């Protein structure tokens, strides 16, 4: 018995050590970014003085406000569109026969598995071929393109968990097809839709590679702007760190909110 206990403890210790390493890897850059966002030194060879200057600059410095507005407007638009369209596609795919459903899901997952660079180049090629000018529209299309599969992947398991007769039950009780969708299917897959939308939003706000290949010379989001500045060997305003810290705070708030809401719901049930 003692030996067994010892063994369990050893495995647990290994788990804790590796978990700590994981968090060290994940949070080292975050901490560096957070400290840089309140560091008065622009060149950042050392930590000089605490300042909130950069947080003000996020809204004022024209070199960064442009890319931020671009990033957020693309993220919001592509999230809304890809969530709506992706949900409809998911319902359509779900109602297919098993064989064609699997075939569609395989196709759906191509952009998920494909490295961003290949997706980016493919999109760039098709846009050039259609003689679109690379810019806002092409970036928006690209973001919708890579977000839809994630929305579908999030919605699909919810649909599978639905009783297959749910939709028919609604029709049976007098709903038109449109009503049945609105009143029965959507409320029951809403968590999947929200999760899918959230994922689409994060993928979009964070994207570098695909935006890089589809945005041309003029249109920049935060990532491509940073890359361009770095590529010229210049340094960028620490407002970028402040912007990132704000995103970070919002993220934590969202996660806390979701968890608290879930807990509240759990207690009620």
């Amino acid at each position, binding site marked *: 018995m003692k030996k067994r206990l010892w063994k369990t403890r050893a495995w647990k210790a290994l788990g804790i050590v590796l978990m700590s390493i994981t968090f060290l890897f994940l949070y080292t850059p975050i901490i560096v970014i957070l400290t840089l966002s309140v560091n008065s030194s622009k060149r950042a060879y050392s930590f000089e003085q605490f300042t909130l200057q950069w947080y003000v600059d996020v809204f004022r410095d024209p070199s960064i406000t442009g890319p931020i507005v671009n990033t957020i407007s693309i993220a919001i638009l592509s999230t809304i569109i890809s969530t709506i369209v992706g949900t409809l596609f998911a319902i359509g795919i779900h109602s297919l026969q098993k064989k064609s459903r699997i075939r569609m899901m395989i196709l759906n997952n191509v952009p998920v598995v494909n490295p961003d660079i290949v997706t980016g180049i493919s999109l760039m090629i098709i846009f050039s071929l259609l003689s679109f000018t690379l810019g806002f529209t092409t970036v928006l299309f690209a973001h919708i393109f890579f977000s839809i599969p994630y929305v579908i992947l999030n919605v699909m398991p919810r649909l599978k968990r639905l009783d297959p007769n749910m939709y028919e039950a609604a029709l049976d009780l007098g709903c038109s097809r449109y009503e049945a969708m609105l009143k029965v299917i959507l409320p029951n897959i809403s968590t999947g839709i929200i999760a899918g939308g959230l994922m689409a939003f994060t993928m979009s706000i964070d994207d570098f590679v695909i935006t890089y290949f589809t945005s041309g010379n003029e249109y920049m989001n935060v990532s491509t702007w940073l890359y361009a500045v770095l590529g010229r060997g210049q340094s960028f305003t620490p407002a970028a760190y402040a912007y990132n810290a704000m995103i970070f705070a919002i993220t934590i708030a969202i996660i806390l909110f979701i968890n608290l809401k879930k807990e509240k719901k759990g207690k009620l*049930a």
Partner: protein
Amino acid sequence: MSKKLIELNDISKSFGDLLVLDHFNLYINENEFVTLLGPSGCGKTTLLRLIGGFESPDEGSIIFDGNIINDLEPHERMINTCFQKYALFPHLNVFDNIAFGLKIKKLPKDEIVSRVTQTLKLVKLEGFEERSVSTLSGGQQQRVAIARAIVNRPKVLLLDEPLGALDLKLRQEMQYELKEMQRQLGITFIYVTHDQEEALTMSDTIVIMNEGKILQIGKPEDIYNEPGNQFVANFIGESNILDGIMKEDFLVEINGKPFQCVDQGFSANEQVEVVIRPEDFEFCDPDATHLVGVVDSLLFKGVHYEINVIVEGREYTIHTTKYRAIGDTVGLSVEPQNIHIMRKSKS
């Protein structure tokens, strides 16, 4: 006296290459409790879905109250369905689940409340209005599903194996309640099941199906006592099915021995199948019968024993309250009215 409510004329339906219903004909009367009974894959659920409007037939017509309803949407039919796994809406509570159809029809609020309350009383779920459906037991969910359908006052209620997920005791209780409900409501129930006991207990009429065809239609007693062929005999209860030769009217030869029976209308020396229910055998003096054998095995089943007796190399299953030990030599007798003669199945 009773009037035809639903007629299915020459219905065929296939999914891909699979022919599920093959030129199917059936009519169902008003206020009838009809059970579609058959093994899984026999087409019974498809038939139900055709009546409910979730599928449309490839050929033939479905007539409801004198009108062809082939192309009507589900919500345009005065028919409601109680689904196999209930299909309750998880985002709505008990009251809202039941009120769903009424709200869609935009009935006045007080009427909705009174109808739902009344229906909850009928299914014995008073006080459950605010409960979330996911907190209900299987039996309670079943009742909500039924309530949700009947609150719309359909002319026909379709039930697709509604008791399949319940345990034995609850199932028997619900069988009784469903039958009672059907009587009270005075509406037609079309009930799909693969459980023969359930079918025998509840139905006015049983339709036995296999491979998309009707094998026999009749009252439960008739189907049990006079199965039309070997499949029905096997499907409805345990049976001893023996080869026989019809010597003349009222006389059949089994194992080369003559037995009195009550069937007639076969040609002389026609090969037939003979069905004898296990409970119809009696033990008797071995000298007074043609059937003499040795007890091979014995199981205690509660009300009765199930005894297998080997007679001239063939096993007979007997249900009896009398005990015989393994190895005993026994005689078996059977009354002429309990010997059922069937024409040979083609296969």
